[in-house]
């Protein structure tokens, strides 16, 4: 039987995407609202795997790009994905066979359900990050060496912009500039590729994984335990937020968060370095987890993810960290999205190695 994303799945998917957002990736709420509305209007969205698609089928990776404040106010136009699809038909002489999330973490993990429903296409059970990252070139397709030679953008007004960049870095620079002209919010297809090219270049199973993460805490007696087990995460610390330092530089919300241990963790202190996402966790001068491994702050009671902007002094939180997809641990992966790509002079060590598990 073919899997489908139903109306009832959207809440669990949104919760899971928030956990995979590692503090960033944008608020999942408006994506979830759009997804529910699209399913009501146009029906459930089939979820397919790469194996379900012919080799030459076109996969359309979509993501919203822009400022979080703007996407919360100037919500996407319903037809934005339609214009991208039409542009693909003009370029390739055929339309896409499936929509894929470019970024499963945060808003861009949920909203593709709405875009797929609008286009009457299935959603591919995969994405290009396995988490959230702040920049366009920080995708598995770039790491896998797929040339970033086509970007199609569509905005709320109806403009369509096709970019033929020379590489991923240029794709980021030009896409950002176009986005500003469009009012700091747009829909973007970065890369359009065949199912065959996707093999090994996308991170498979991430929609199913986000759903499982979201469902793990549903009705659980011990939501935190259930989430930790589902993620296979290392529990770095349980405590309360005792210091928050925020600064906005270069368009990024940077900051440092201090969590002091409570209960069994009393006397311990963990600091988190943040640039939109949670990137490095340090205890007593020792790094306990670092990007590209995933670090998420959750509410200790409900085990729901807390976004960077939602962190407040005094919150009771638990910091979880777990391994990223192996693709990010390759030399090219670490060069693209390892600690040095974010300006931290650190040699990457896997979270499970630091924890002494492997």
């Amino acid at each position, binding site marked *: 039987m073919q899997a489908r994303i139903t109306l009832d799945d959207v809440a669990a998917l949104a919760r899971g995407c928030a956990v995979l957002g590692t503090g960033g990736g944008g608020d999942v709420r408006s994506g979830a609202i759009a997804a529910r509305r699209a399913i009501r209007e146009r029906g459930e969205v089939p979820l397919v795997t790469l194996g379900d698609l012919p080799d030459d089928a076109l996969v359309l990776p979509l993501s919203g790009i822009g400022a979080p404040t703007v996407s919360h106010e100037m919500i996407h136009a319903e037809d934005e994905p339609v214009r991208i699809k039409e542009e693909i038909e003009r370029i390739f002489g055929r339309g896409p066979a499936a929509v894929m999330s470019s970024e499963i973490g945060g808003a861009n993990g949920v909203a593709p359900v*709405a875009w797929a429903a609008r286009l009457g296409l299935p959603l591919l059970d995969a994405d290009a990050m396995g988490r959230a990252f702040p920049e366009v070139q920080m995708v598995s397709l770039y790491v896998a060496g797929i040339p970033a030679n086509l970007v199609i953008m569509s905005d709320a007004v109806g403009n369509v912009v096709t970019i033929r960049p020379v590489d991923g870095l240029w794709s980021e620079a030009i896409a950002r500039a176009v986005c500003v002209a469009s009012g700091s919010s747009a829909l973007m297809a970065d890369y359009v590729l065949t199912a065959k090219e996707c093999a090994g270049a996308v991170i498979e199973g991430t929609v199913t994984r986000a759903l499982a993460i979201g469902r793990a805490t549903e009705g659980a007696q011990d939501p935190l335990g259930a989430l930790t087990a589902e993620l296979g995460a290392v529990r770095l610390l349980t405590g309360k937020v005792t210091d928050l330092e925020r600064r906005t530089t270069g368009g990024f919300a940077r900051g440092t968060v201090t969590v002091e241990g409570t209960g069994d963790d009393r006397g311990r202190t963990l600091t988190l370095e943040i640039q939109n996402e949670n990137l490095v966790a340090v205890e007593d001068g020792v790094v306990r987890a670092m990007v590209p491994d995933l670090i998420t702050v959750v509410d200790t009671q409900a085990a729901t993810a807390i976004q960077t902007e939602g962190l407040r002094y005094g919150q009771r939180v638990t910091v979880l960290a777990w391994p990223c997809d192996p693709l990010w641990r390759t030399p090219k992966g670490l060069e693209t999205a390892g600690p040095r790509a974010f300006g931290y002079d650190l040699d990457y060590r896997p979270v499970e190695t630091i924890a002494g598990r492997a």
Partner: protein
Amino acid sequence: MSEHAIAADARLRIGIDVGGTNTDAVVLDEADRVVAKAKRPTSPDVTEGLRAALDAVLGELPEPGLVTRVMLGTTHATNAILERRSLGRVAVLRLGAPATTSVPPLSEWPEDLAKTVSAGAAVVRGGHFVDGRAIAPLDEDAVRRFLAATPADAIAVTGVFSPASADQENRVAEIIQAELGEVPVSLSHEIGSLGLLERENAAILNAALYGVARDVTGALQEALRARGLRVETFFAQNDGTLMAVDYAARYPVLTIGSGPANSLRGAAYLSGVKDAIVADVGGTSTDLGVLVGGFPRESAAAVEIGGVTTNFRMPDILSIALGGGTIVGAEPRSVGYRIGREALVFGGTTPTMTDAAVAAGRGSVGAHAVPAEWHDRLAAAVRRADDLVADAVDRVALGKADLPLVAVGGGAFLLAPRIPGAPEVIRPEHAEVANAVGAAIALASGRLETIVPAAGAGNGRATLIEKAKEEAAARAVAAGADPASVEIVELSEIPLSYLPEPAVRLHVKAAGPLAR
């Protein structure tokens, strides 16, 4: 018995707070001293309990004619939404197409509430980008067509980025007046802040509540007339300030959540402390909030009312399941209003937190001794409750260990003489009616939220900030404040990320005493 002698030419005012369990009323003299107070059960229709409380305090006055003002904090609006009762039908207009069409208005509303409230909805061309450019010129013909096709009691208008660029919403208000005359209109930029769906929801609820506001105002004025009172009336709003009746008639949604705000402001006044943690202990729960400069600290989170998410300001309140009626061994259940029969100290058989506090020597309530066999369990319950309060104090204090705790509400005696995290526990006189006192002493206020360039980032920043301050002050005067003494009481900037030009969200609030 009056608490203070009342001069023959005194000018008195009455504060009334309608709570979930009780309706409290107080009379204050010109020096803000409490000269009469009363507590009556809140009636299902609200108005009857209000009349009873009013009669009780008026009965203590030598001459009701001395009362010149009445301030009312009430749950009418909240109840109307929760019960889908007396709500008006609203024509819902959004200015934003072709943007925003992926989520039409009323998308996530509970079906029955949407059915009750919506007379029809449309998204027409218009709205603004974050940088102030128009997404599209306002489609005035589409606005007129929608108005003609959608008869309604009121109209809610929400434009994309209207808190920063209000001109299109204002233009629609002009069109409505030209086409339909005096139909009430809710403009979203006057009600909520950034966040389209939440602001739109608040504007729609506001429009649906115009009839409720008229009914409450009418009932209050009728009750006052019947008692021979010729007074000015004000409504309490959810930031602890007041609005004149004609202003409240335009912004009824702002009365939602005024209870906790009143109690915080009343605690500030009665204790004389401007920065403090306030614990309001009721029958079922204890509400903890924080006073900053005499005003309630506001919540950053979205607020849900009757299943609808909104984003207007509300006091940041942490509720814990601890009240005078809380049943020991069956927490968080409470005996509620039946405490006078069921608690051990009243001769009943249910052990409550009131019994526990009495057994611990924290107060003397009721005529019956607590049977000795309960003492150990009640002592353990008190220890648990103290831990619960200490933890809650730590949570709301946000790391500040120097804030005193002001204990108010009918169950304030439950609280321990010393609370970890607070250097001092203040128990002011009249604490049991702090919420009604808060309504009576409140200032009038106005506020504004917009987007301005960040410091050093763009031209015109200083001018824009000055303009925002002036507009906030003008709104405070419209709400009833004395123009000569309006002050800017809050000015905050939140940086916005990922924008081409560094910008901040500017929030300004002005407040002042009521005009004489």
